[in-house]
């Protein structure tokens, strides 16, 4: 059953990658005509004569000699969009004197009324005569619809002088693959392949070595200490949502900790800040008591939801720490600024504290105030160690392989950088460009 589970989606994903690139090819085959600028604009000669007049309603001063208007407007489809943007360029007025800015108007081709024109863009006279239409949420561009454009030169007195109407010969259309995301796709594909390779290896029963992590052994010790002292154990599963990977790692460890606690007959307190995390934590603890053979000693009030506001939650947990005086505190999961408040209060109450988070900014505070801290990835690794499942171990191996790849890429970049220095070449820029992803999509 489980083998099928893995197989189907894996095959799906791998099928998807080539099919996407095929889709991309087909897009490219279609586009050449789209990108050649000059062919796609027609001049609406009939309209020109009328539109050259200033718009009705504007007060036209007799003395005003009129302004030069802009020339041809060209419209292109914008690549990598959902068919909701067009690239519009126009020839600015030959004589720019007296022009403050250009007002760009658009209407759906075939509509006759003057009211159908919408002003979609104002371009100051000194800026390049090009813009991407479709950003204005009030006047969206719809895929497959042909539009007409006209541009008015605006004088310093805010009088508009209209140029000709141009109809776009192409309509906006959506693409099937985002060409700027190729690198991301390759990296993702590589990662998935590696992880599945190690899943497969783990399932075949290959023995895999993993080095010990100090914090894990400390967990059992800490539970033992609380039992000896007859005091409860506090477990904070972070303050993030269930979609946060750190929370998931924390819940796995909670299952294991709760099982040990059930065996020792100690009390556990799990306050939660996210309602969904609360339900999952409750299930995990209940299941742990069941597995330990002591479902009767499970106290339904031990796992509870507190509140969803960060510092109100901290106030609550602080109160619990000072009143119930737990002997051991676990802070595993995602934490923000409250990390230090929790850990200092805990240390004030004299508890042994074990922390683990992937929040880089909060790690220094846990390191300085807790007895053991799982740094970043160690938290995930700990949950994999405790899960005792071959595939979990395989995943850790896969991650290590990825780190090895990253390290060799950085080393290669270092070598290329030195080469550039010595031989005066530009290999590093080229190499770095291979992994560069754009910030704005």
């Amino acid at each position: 059953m489980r083998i099928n589970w893995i197989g189907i989606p894996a095959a799906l994903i791998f099928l998807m990658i080539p099919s996407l690139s095929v889709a991309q090819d087909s897009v490219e085959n279609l586009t050449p005509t789209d990108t050649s600028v000059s062919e796609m604009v027609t001049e609406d000669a009939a309209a020109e004569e009328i539109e050259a007049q200033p718009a009705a309603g504007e007060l036209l001063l007799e003395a005003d000699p009129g302004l030069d208007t802009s020339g041809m407007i060209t419209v292109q489809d914008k690549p990598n969009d959902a068919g909701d943007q067009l690239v519009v360029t126009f020839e600015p007025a030959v004589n720019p004197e007296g022009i403050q800015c250009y007002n760009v108007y658009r209407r759906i081709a075939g509509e006759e009324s003057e009211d159908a024109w919408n002003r979609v863009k104002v371009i100051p006279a000194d800026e390049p005569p090009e813009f991407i239409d479709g950003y204005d949420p009030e006047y969206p561009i719809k895929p497959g619809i042909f539009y007409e454009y006209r541009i008015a030169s605006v004088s310093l007195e805010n009088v508009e002088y209209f140029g000709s109407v141009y109809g776009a010969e192409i309509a906006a259309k959506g693409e099937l693959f985002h060409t700027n995301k190729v690198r991301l796709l390759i990296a993702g594909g590589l990662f998935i392949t590696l992880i599945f390779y190690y899943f497969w290896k783990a399932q075949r029963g290959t023995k895999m070595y993993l080095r010990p992590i100090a914090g894990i052994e400390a967990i059992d010790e800490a539970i033992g200490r609380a039992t000896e002292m007859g005091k409860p154990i506090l477990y904070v599963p972070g303050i993030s949502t269930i979609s946060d990977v750190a929370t998931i790692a924390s819940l796995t460890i909670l299952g294991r900790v709760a099982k040990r606690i059930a065996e020792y007959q100690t009390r556990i307190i799990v306050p939660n800040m996210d309602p969904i995390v609360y339900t999952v934590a409750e299930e995990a603890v209940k299941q742990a008591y069941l597995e330990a053979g002591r479902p009767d000693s499970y106290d339904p009030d031990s796992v509870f939801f507190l509140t969803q506001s960060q510092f109100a939650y901290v106030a609550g947990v602080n109160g619990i720490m000072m009143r119930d005086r737990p002997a051991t505190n676990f802070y595993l999961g995602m934490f923000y600024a409250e990390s230090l408040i929790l850990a200092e209060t805990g240390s004030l109450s004299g508890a042994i504290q074990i922390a683990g988070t992937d929040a880089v900014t909060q790690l220094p505070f846990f390191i300085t105030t807790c007895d053991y801290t799982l740094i970043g990835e160690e938290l995930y690794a700990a949950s994999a160690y405790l899960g005792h499942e071959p595939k979990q171990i395989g995943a850790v191996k896969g991650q290590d392989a990825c780190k090895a790849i990253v390290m060799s890429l950085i080393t290669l970049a270092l070598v290329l950088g030195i080469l550039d220095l010595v031989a005066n070449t530009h290999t590093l820029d080229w190499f770095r460009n291979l992994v560069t992803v754009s910030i704005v999509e």
Partner: protein
Amino acid sequence: MYDTIGIWVGAFFTLAIYSFLYKENPVYRLAEHLVVGISLGYTMVLIYNTVILPKLLEPLFAGNHWILIIPGLLGLLYITRFIPSIAWLSRYPIAFIMGTGMGIGFPLTMKAYVLRQLEAAMVPLYESGMPWYEVFGNIVMIFGTLAALIYFFFSKPHKGLFFGTGSKIGIWVIMLGFGATFGFTVMGRISLLIGRIQYLLGDWLHIIE
């Protein structure tokens, strides 16, 4: 009048929280329990006003968004948790949130945590006009990143020249970074206290303006 009472109440609860620094006490306990209740109540109102009403009920009653019944029903499945025999139904909405969240996270994590970091780690050691401390900084940065990555290697024991020394340098770099972050954060935290002191001495007691 309203504002004056508000400031006094606020000042009272501010001092109630600070009293915790001395000792856990009934006044803190009151503040703690109140803020838990109020904040959750506030969240309920907020969620109703910003999600349930405008995104679900209003479109539904407007009559043209019947499709929204699906997420509505999916959300209602959470309530089955209160009925043990069908509590497993509450896994459906959790699965929905979980699966889509993981799927959205994958490419974004790949981009933000891997590719962008990788790109940023590929810096030239020296470019003309760079002062010595920047060159030295770049060397420290590249080798520091490599060493710290070795520390996070789980497949090999931290022994030998490469893994042993590497991971040792790695943890040094990590500690240097943690110390710096700690020192850097102090200022922001003191600022928070300054804010409260301004509230107490200014808004409440009018000693400072």
